């Protein structure tokens, strides 16, 4: 019994629970395969329909092409200059096959696709620049050099999948053959040591081993040739070595998401790794069409970011403000929604002055991204994980915020909003009360009001009041009036705020002689109550707006 027999026996004695686990898993996997098979069949049916549509489209395109050629023929006849190949055409030889030599020869003209989602759609782009040895289209290059170290990019490496697979297989076959060869050589040495030249049986055995060695050497050489016949055989391993977090290896290309820092490392490591694998002088980067997506793919990003454990930021930490949480966005749409929230808040900040952002993070927060926020004040929490920046409303830059939120170290951003902004109105500003015809008697925007008014601070009460007003059973209560005192003179701004809630056909606006009171006359049918309440709400936060008075049903001026 040789040593491998002992190994076979040892493996035969694997613990029963390991074998049982295997059998169970196998049964489970079979079920999954069955489910997948059904799914594949459905997919195949869909694909078939898709193929049919494609052929129809192709036929239509062909007809169009024939018409165009017919139209262009006279021109071509007179112009003997052959057309310049463009886009990925330059990689194909006369037979229409993807030609490796042409790829390498034409890399300086490589056109970079900005889309990682549809590799088939190669589009010619502009000037090619070089960043750490990676050739990039100018726009991407500019984005890359201005990006922060941790900014994330979508990267697509395209290679000739079939060839790569062949090379990979050959590489592993070569390793296997080499191992067998080593083993055979050892065996031959052992036999040689005991062979005295007379033992016929041993001689035959030795000859058989020599024959096997010869065969195995041939296999090693053949597979080595195949494995070396290319630029890189270890694409996936390379990606792993470079520490790229997410990759989706497919037979023809790899899509991954990597920060600028990682890309830099990747670019350098390609050389190092290549040297280990192949001593050829050919530049390994030339084996790939390397593309970057100029836009972040936020959906993937959200999968990469793994927020540290822990609860949300404590909104009570700063008493002055309530906070709304800007989540790490999972899609651009979601982020846009958050920006809308900020825009709303910003309007409120006409009443206050600043926006305050609490940024919680792990690791090191990028100073340059904070600075881009143009903050007027900054303070760090005692435990060092939260930075609170105060930004003047006028300086608020949504791109800077977006950039900050994309940093992998930053995991939550909260923006402050004036207390009550979501559930009510700025305090001490809105009053319901006197009938409109009396408003000029009781309302003094400078000194305040006399009795009869009711101050209202919450949305529900306002809605209730409006409801009462609208349902007021008075034969002439068609309209309502809103009057408010203003400190500034930017009447257009006030008007803009109010117009949001009022159909322009149904309102008129007047100012008093000193331009410190504004009166809005609104017809009932032109009033969208929800929008109107929002308009009042926004108005109430305007720092140039004083008290707002909403009238009881007016008595028409003709009365």
């Amino acid at each position, binding site marked *: 019994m040789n040593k491998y027999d002992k*190994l076979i026996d*040892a493996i035969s004695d*694997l613990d029963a*629970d390991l074998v*049982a686990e295997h*059998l169970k898993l*196998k049964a489970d996997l079979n079920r999954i395969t069955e489910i997948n098979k059904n799914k594949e069949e459905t997919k195949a049916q869909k694909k078939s329909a898709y193929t049919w549509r494609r052929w129809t489209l192709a036929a239509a395109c062909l007809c169009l092409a024939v018409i165009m050629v017919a139209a262009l023929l006279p021109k071509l006849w007179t112009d003997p200059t052959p057309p310049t190949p463009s886009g990925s055409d330059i990689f194909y030889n006369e037979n229409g096959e993807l030609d490796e030599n042409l790829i390498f020869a034409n890399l300086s003209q490589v056109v970079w696709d900005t889309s990682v989602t549809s590799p088939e759609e190669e589009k010619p782009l502009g000037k090619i620049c070089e960043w750490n040895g990676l050739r990039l289209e100018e726009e991407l290059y500019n984005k890359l050099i201005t990006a922060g170290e941790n900014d994330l990019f979508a990267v697509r490496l395209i290679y000739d999948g079939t060839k790569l697979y062949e090379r990979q*297989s050959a590489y592993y076959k070569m390793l296997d053959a080499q191992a067998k060869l080593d*083993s055979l050589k050892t065996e031959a040495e052992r036999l040689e040591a005991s062979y005295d030249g007379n033992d016929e049986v041993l001689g035959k055995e030795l000859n058989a081993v020599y024959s096997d060695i010869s065969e195995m050497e041939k296999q090693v050489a053949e597979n080595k040739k195949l494995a070396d016949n290319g630029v890189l055989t270890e694409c996936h391993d390379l990606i792993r070595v470079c520490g790229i977090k997410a990759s989706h290896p497919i037979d023809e290309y790899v899509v991954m998401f990597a920060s600028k820092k990682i890309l830099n490392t990747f670019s350098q490591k390609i050389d190092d790794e290549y040297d280990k694998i192949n001593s050829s002088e050919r530049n390994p980067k030339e084996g790939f069409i390397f593309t970057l997506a100029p836009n972040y793919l936020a959906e993937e990003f959200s999968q990469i970011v793994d927020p540290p454990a822990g609860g949300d930021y404590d909104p009570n930490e700063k008493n002055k403000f309530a906070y709304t949480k800007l989540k790490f966005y999972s899609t651009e749409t979601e982020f846009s929604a958050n920006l809308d929230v900020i825009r709303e808040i910003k309007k409120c900040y006409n009443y206050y002055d600043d926006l305050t952002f609490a940024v919680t993070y792990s690791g090191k927060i990028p100073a340059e991204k904070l600075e881009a926020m143009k903050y007027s004040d900054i303070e760090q929490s005692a435990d060092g994980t939260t930075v609170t920046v105060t930004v003047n409303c006028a300086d608020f830059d949504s791109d800077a915020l977006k950039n900050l939120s994309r940093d992998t170290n930053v995991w939550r951003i909260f923006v402050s909003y004036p207390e009550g902004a979501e559930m009510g109105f700025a305090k001490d500003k809105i009053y319901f009360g006197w009938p409109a015809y009396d408003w000029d008697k009781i309302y003094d925007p400078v000194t305040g009001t006399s009795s009869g008014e009711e101050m209202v601070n919450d949305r529900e009460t306002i809605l209730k009041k409006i409801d009462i007003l609208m349902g007021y059973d008075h034969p002439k209560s068609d309209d309502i009036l809103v009057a408010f005192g203003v400190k500034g003179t930017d009447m257009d701004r006030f008007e803009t705020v109010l117009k949001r809630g009022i159909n322009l056909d149904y309102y008129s606006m007047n100012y008093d002689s000193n331009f410190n009171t504004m009166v809005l006359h609104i017809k009932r049918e032109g009033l969208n109550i929800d929008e109107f309440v929002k308009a009042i709400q926004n108005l109430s936060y305007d720092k140039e707006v004083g008290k707002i008075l909403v009238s009881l049903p007016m008595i028409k001026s003709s009365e």
Partner: protein
Amino acid sequence: MTKVKDPKGKNYTDEEIIELYFNRDEEAIRLTEARYGKLIFKVAYNILGDRQYAEQCENDTYLGIWNAIPPERPARFGAFAVRIARCAAISKYREERGKSRIPSGLTVSMEELYGVLGEENELVRKTEDEELKRIINEYVRGLGERRRYIFVGRYYMAESVEEIAKALGITESAVYKELAKIKRGLKKHLEENEVNI
């Protein structure tokens, strides 16, 4: 737990089948065949690469189980049956190996392990069979779930790479890669334990 029916429609669990062995009821063999026959045949075929031999082995396995229970009362009957099948098949394999190279899954899978064991004179002591078993078990337990599946599939069940790849939904190339890693890991583990056979 899955059950197997007898001709009268009664369902039997593994434990009940084992009980039948204890009662020396030959129905136990038929029920074993109904439940594990295909698996037993497959393991034998993977090892021997010959249908006739595999069938012979399958019958030897039933006899083996009949002789082993009692006194054995296996906690995992399926794994127990597979082990007996493997042992029977390997015994046959060794018998036939002297005559010619057997083109089976076991031959290929074991050839993959060439080089894993060190030279006989290079380490300090001989490893006892029992200790080798312990070391191999320890190594397999330390593998991740996927690699463990590949190890047991390839080296115990002698399944083909294609079959493993299909089961796991990965490419054959990926399985080869994993096998290379398993092989390297095993070699390292054996060296660390100063294994010499």
